[in-house]
């Protein structure tokens, strides 16, 4: 075949990709067109925002319901969940000495962080905690770090800090701290609109017995697995 008779072709996929790349914000343009047409024809718009709001509302409702159910079982813990909820915008009590590392180079930085945290100065506390390697924090300190990040609405980092609190080997860890960490993890998921993960996390602090089974069955029915 001579050079002139050849007839190369560019694939449809490449052309589609090229078309999509021409937009500065493809999703925003898509939402605008959908909104325009839904207003004209009266169908409900795709409603990604509505879904998010609904999932957040569902997560909060489940959180309150779980708190209401768990309240009697948790009344003996060091800090009741009701107290935590009432103190959403204030620091958690730092009465336990385990919040302070007893020795080491990092002592002053952690002390600074805890002091700022006690005074409700979350930004300074977070700065101080962040200047420290997360692996050097104990469970309680991780809880405070996570809680401070939660207050600053830095949910992704808060989840990392709280997870660190659960994973770290801390000889002084107690059940009450673990429970608070799990509770704040659930709250962080709820605040980020992750209904499924909120439920899963809450199921971890439900005491063994009927309540735990009920919560697990709710999770199972919603998520398809416990």
């Amino acid at each position, binding site marked *: 075949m001579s050079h*002139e008779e*050849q*007839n*190369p*072709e*560019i694939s*449809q996929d*490449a*052309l*589609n*990709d*090229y*078309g*999509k*790349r*021409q*937009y*500065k*914000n*493809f999703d*925003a*343009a*898509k939402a*605008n*067109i*959908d909104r*325009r*047409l*839904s207003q*004209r*024809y*009266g*169908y*409900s718009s*795709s409603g990604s925002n509505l879904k998010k709001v609904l999932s957040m509302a569902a997560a909060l409702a489940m959180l309150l319901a779980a708190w209401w159910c768990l309240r009697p079982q948790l009344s003996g813990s060091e800090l009741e969940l009701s107290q935590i909820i009432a103190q959403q915008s204030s620091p958690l009590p730092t009465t336990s000495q385990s919040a302070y590392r007893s020795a080491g180079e990092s002592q002053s930085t952690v002390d600074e962080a805890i002091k700022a945290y006690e005074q409700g100065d979350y930004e300074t506390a977070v700065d101080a905690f962040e200047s420290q390697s997360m692996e050097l924090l104990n469970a309680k300190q991780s809880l405070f770090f996570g809680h401070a990040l939660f207050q600053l609405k830095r949910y992704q980092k808060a989840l990392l800090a709280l997870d660190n609190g659960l994973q770290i080997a801390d000889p002084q860890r107690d059940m009450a701290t673990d429970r608070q960490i799990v509770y704040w993890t659930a709250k962080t998921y709820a605040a980020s609109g992750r209904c499924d993960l909120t439920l899963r996390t809450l199921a971890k602090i439900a005491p063994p017995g009927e309540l735990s089974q009920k919560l697990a069955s709710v999770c199972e029915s919603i998520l398809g697995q416990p």
Partner: protein
Amino acid sequence: MLNLRHVDDKTLMERIRKGDQRATGILVRRYLEQAMAYAGRFAGNNPDHESEDLVSEAFIKTIRAIEIGTSVNQVFPYLRKCIYNQHLDDLRRRRPPTSYFDDLGVIAADSYHYNTTDDHDAVLMELILNEVAGMREDQQIIFELRVFDRRDFEYIAREMRTCVDTVTHIYYNVIRTLKNRAPKLYDSYVTDV
């Protein structure tokens, strides 16, 4: 309640004809992304804004055609035609002077020979656009990027994620076709008028 998400286009069109708003919503969402990708290829400097108008208008025309019972056999080809026709109208408004058609000099020279109208450029443009409209999509896009947007082959090849040789080849194939067709096109135009 029937889950319309999984029904075929024909059923959706019947429901739209009966005034089912939910079916309209499903149809829009089914083809919105494809239509936007198609319109994006032709949008100018402000694709988000221009394409929003282009795609919305195309959907309105298509749904109107379905509602009034015009024969719409397949939704997406109809939608695509609406977008392209609208785009051709935009091109007619944007038309560059004939001197911009460097590679089409022969067509211009040939058609000047038959110049019987006041607006020679408009006729030439119309002939070229009609001819290009019948070509493959990649040929249309490359031709428009080169002639209307004055893009070089390297840019087009980069955008299309292909090699410069392919783009050059496709472009000159289009030019050769247009040059071959020019006298006939102009003849048929003069006869029609």
